[in-house]
């Protein structure tokens, strides 16, 4: 079953979302999905590039797609939805020859085309599968109520992202349910958290992330599982700012879904990296698991 796929961690994977990277690597290794690092990968350009120019944005992403092609691979997995969008958009836009010609003009080596980027969530769903995930569980997440939050661009727009449902995605819910967690219906699954406005417009993030935390409390979630480094940062690191702006008192743990998977797979604490989060999920987690026993 061991299939290989190129792995693009994204810049935040080396910094503010280190624990997403380490838990992703550990979970994929435990489930037999072989992630092959892309040598000397560079930034995809993220939102700042596409807000400046679409050819520039595609060229920054296509440099990495070409590196994947040079590895003899046709697909890359990335944990970050923003990287995912940029890599997929670049590949898609380069299917039009006039656009690709403009992109190639900016690159040292032209992009050969045809490299598909998928999320780690999609790779786990399609290349590993729920049955394998289920049979690998060592510590079921029984008794843990999780709201799965996908973020705004993981599945949108559907024509480009081509995975799961764009209004009510279920891939993360299905995986965490397979690990024994009680996934609660979460109506704001795909609402935006405020994205990269945390630095230039913290008031905007406080309002939008506050709405999400409020909804998670409202549906009785013990924690909010996320799949995006920026969502995680807004909901966790900025939770104090949210509380100050809204006069609220949230203390909601916001782990990556891969960290919860890693708990269920009995992966070592250093790779799970709960100590890297601001609101520590461990007290709530041990309480939930103890009650279930």
């Amino acid at each position, binding site marked *: 079953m061991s299939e290989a796929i190129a792995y693009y961690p994204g810049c935040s994977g080396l910094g503010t979302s280190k624990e997403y990277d380490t838990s992703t690597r550990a979970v994929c290794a435990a489930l037999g999905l072989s992630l092959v690092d892309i040598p000397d990968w560079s930034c995809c350009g993220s939102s700042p590039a596409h807000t400046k120019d679409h050819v520039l944005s595609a060229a920054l992403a296509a440099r990495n797609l070409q590196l994947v092609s040079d590895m003899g691979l046709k697909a890359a997995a990335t944990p970050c939805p923003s990287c995912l969008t940029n890599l997929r958009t670049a590949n898609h836009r380069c299917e039009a020859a006039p656009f690709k010609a403009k992109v190639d003009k900016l690159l040292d080596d032209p992009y050969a085309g045809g490299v598909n980027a998928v999320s780690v969530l999609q790779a786990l769903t399609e290349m590993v599968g729920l049955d394998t995930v289920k049979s690998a569980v060592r510590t079921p997440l029984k008794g843990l109520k999780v709201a799965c939050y996908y973020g705004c661009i993981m599945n949108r727009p559907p024509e480009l992202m081509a995975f799961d449902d764009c209004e009510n995605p279920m891939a993360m819910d299905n995986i965490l349910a397979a690990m024994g967690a009680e996934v609660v219906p979460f109506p704001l699954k795909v609402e935006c958290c405020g*994205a990269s406005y945390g630095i230039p417009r913290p008031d905007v993030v406080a309002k939008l992330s506050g709405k999400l935390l409020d909804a998670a409390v409202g549906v009785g979630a013990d924690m909010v599982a996320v799949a995006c480094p920026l969502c995680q940062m807004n909901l966790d690191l900025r939770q104090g700012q949210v509380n100050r702006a809204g006069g609220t008192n949230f203390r909601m743990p916001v782990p990556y879904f891969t960290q919860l998977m890693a708990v269920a797979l009995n992966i070592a604490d250093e790779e799970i990296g709960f100590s890297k*989060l601001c609101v520590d999920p461990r007290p709530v987690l041990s309480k939930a698991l103890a009650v279930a026993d």
Partner: protein
Amino acid sequence: MNIINLTRDYDEDFVHRVEEESGQNVSLCYQCGNCTAGCPYTFAYDIPVSQIMRLVQAGQKKTVLSSKSIWLCATCESCTTRCPNMIDVACVMDVLRHMARREGLAAVPQVKTFWDSFLDSVRAHGRVFELGLLINYVTKTGRFWTDMDLGPKILPKGKLAFKPHDIQGKEHVARIFERFERESNS
């Protein structure tokens, strides 16, 4: 709602440029308001996204390119996903800020500065150096209080790198930017 004199103010070239650069037919918009209904940023916008679309149809270049809204759109793709006429509204918003940049307009200057600081970091190192990006932004804007409260929260976590992760091919990435600037000026 303002009254617009279409005979006097309609900028035909602007409408064509938006359509060409976004690949969208803006005349398909029939003002159902679905995009605005789903847009999480309407509370922060000066002009709701559906009205931006209407103003584009009406060729109101100056109003559109001077708006704050085009700098506050996060490309969350809600509008694009829900448009009944399959207009890629988020792409139109993206193209409008490309055009605003070229006109030297940025109605929410700190957003532009943040994005530029991000791209400067990529250009210098090949990857984003998060702490360097923040310092660059604070230096450029003088907003020295930005995220001061987060320092004590994040520093003990040991995940914020103090040095950039320069890649070997960083000159290649820098050349992408140089060629882009050359192409844009030619």
